[in-house]
């Protein structure tokens, strides 16, 4: 029973991370059909923003020393700023480009950013300690769950609730949903394209910062590749969920998280190292059964 509860919490917390990532990718895809491969590097950038640039092994903590009520908003701001800046400088020029070109442009941006960070910080992973108390376990129904897992799940639920309210109840949310449904039509009806797109980028950047904070707290290191894995799974989740469907992306994020944890728990020992193969295999099977995604919006149907 406690073992089962442990698995449930593992699945929920891993799924939360993937869901937050998928959300960041799905929002931008919705408004401008861009699959943002730089998202993983946004995550890494937010983590490294807490450190002072140096190539030494011992990290000089800079913003990371701030009290948390200041650090969290500051980092969210960094994420949003970076994301908005990348829209203004780079992605704005690709509004009418072929999606493949846009995708490669976003990859090139991420590549440049990653190597810029490497120039400043060197490739050595750096240790960084944020809120060590979150690593302590708490007892829930007899199972010992790390506090961080609980916090991650709670944060994700809060973010999801806030975002749902924003999308459903505010004017900007309505505009964003309209833009995701049919961008040209939305513009004709008076939605400001630049405003909506900038807003989507800002939210996506904040989500990247949140993931960065969770990852850094969890692993205790700042590593240049830390965002890449989350970004990959998030990208897959947005497709499985049905491109253009925000709730679908979140659900698929949780699903992939759950699948990973369940494979990890149930596979025999010698097959456990091949867990990712099983996850990717499951992804391919899901796509074969539902190529349009599990929760495809009606507008995503191919018209002839």
């Amino acid at each position, binding site marked *: 029973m406690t073992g089962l509860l442990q698995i449930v919490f593992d699945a929920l917390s891993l799924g939360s991370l993937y869901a937050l990532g998928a959300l960041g990718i799905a929002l931008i895809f919705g408004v401008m059909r861009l699959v943002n*491969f730089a998202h993983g590097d946004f995550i890494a950038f937010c983590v490294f923003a807490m450190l002072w640039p140096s190539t030494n092994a011992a990290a000089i903590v800079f913003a990371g020393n701030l009290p948390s009520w200041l650090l969290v908003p500051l980092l969210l701001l960094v994420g949003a700023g970076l994301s908005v800046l990348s829209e203004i400088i780079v992605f704005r020029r*690709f509004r009418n480009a072929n*999606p493949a*070109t846009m995708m490669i442009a976003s*990859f090139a941006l991420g590549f440049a950013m*990653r190597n810029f960070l*490497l*120039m400043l910080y060197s490739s050595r992973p750096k240790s960084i300690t944020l809120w060590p108390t979150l690593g302590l376990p708490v007892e829930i129904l007899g199972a010992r769950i790390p506090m961080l897992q609980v916090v991650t799940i709670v944060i994700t639920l809060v973010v999801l609730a806030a975002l749902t309210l924003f999308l459903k109840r505010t004017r900007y949310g309505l505009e964003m949903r309209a833009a995701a449904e049919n961008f040209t039509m939305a513009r004709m009806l008076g939605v400001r394209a630049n405003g909506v797109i900038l807003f989507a980028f800002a939210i996506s950047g904040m989500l990247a910062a949140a993931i960065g904070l969770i990852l850094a707290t969890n692993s205790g290191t700042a590593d240049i590749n830390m965002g890449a894995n989350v970004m990959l799974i998030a990208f897959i989740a947005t497709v499985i969920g049905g491109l253009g469907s925000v709730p679908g992306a979140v659900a698929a994020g949780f699903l992939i998280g759950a699948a990973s944890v369940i494979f990890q728990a149930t596979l025999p020992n010698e097959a456990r190292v091949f867990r990712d193969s099983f996850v990717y295999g499951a992804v391919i099977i899901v796509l074969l059964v539902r190529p349009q995604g599990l929760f495809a919006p009606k507008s*995503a149907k*191919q018209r002839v």
Partner: protein
Amino acid sequence: MSQRPSVLWRTIATPLILTVLLLVIAALSYQFGSRAFNRTVVEMFINIMVVVGLYVFIGNSGLLSFGHISFMCLGAYMTAWLTIPPMMKSITLKGLPAWLLQTKLSMWIATPLSGLFVAIIALIVGRIIMRLSGIAASIATFGLLGVVNNVYSNWDSVTGGQGSIVGIPPTMTVWNGWLGAAVAIAIAYLYAISRSGLALRATRDEAVAANASGIDIVRERLIAFVVSAFIIGLAGALYAHFLSIVNPGAFYLRTTFVTLSMLVVGGMYSLSGAVVGVVAISVLIELFRNLEKGVSIDGVTLGLPNGFQEVAIGVITIVILIYLPSGLMRNRELTWPSWRRRQAVPRPAQPALEESN
């Protein structure tokens, strides 16, 4: 002298020009280049093979594939299994079947065998994946990349796991490299002018109309998938000989995106674009590598900081894409004389990833 070049000449002009251009590069590098520079040129030729292989599938079908680098991985490991001396294999790769442990083939036999092996794997995998279209197909190929990387990184007794396998004979020269690139270009061009290539481009431009005209989309895609896998399998085999070690990390995301960038920068819908993209990016990389090393003036070395090369490549790629969204070659083929008669390839009406909006 007739006004128009003959049909035969017009047919073979593009691959011939490309191959001869590369031969000039090979000869110049052999004659004047340092050892290090020659290695750079060999690497460029191998990249040309990979990107030309990508073009065969992506350029003709319009589907973006993230999975082709896994074919490079399969080809490289196959070559490693076939060419490493049995003495070394029996120590490091205990899990190999006995007949493979005792095999020791030369590069000239092992390379085509590796290509064939990869093509067979592609035929099996492709039968499943090619049913999908649009971004679902792209993600499925991504899944393929993930599976191959995961298996080859962890199947310790057969692939050496995360570590590298050493002992592949380092037999690559600029001439081998050039030959590989020429073979790749020839195969790609033959495919592009074949019946299947034409049919596949029709499905890329107008899937519904092509289907209505009796083209079996899945079948044509599968053919292109297998042909491109064969080319990339050859490239992987030569890459193993080039480095003389193989490591699963070399065939993952970084290589995938760098080669895709080369293709898009050159222009993804033409063979010339594929070749020109690789040459352009390789020249840039070499240029910045030298700038990083710096110039010595009176004992003071002036150079760019380390790592500047990658940042610059990223930025330049973005700038090229902003000003030339369809790539350096604008989806045209090189013909002779290119300023008089350019074969424009029509823009695909519906790009691969565009879901209806």
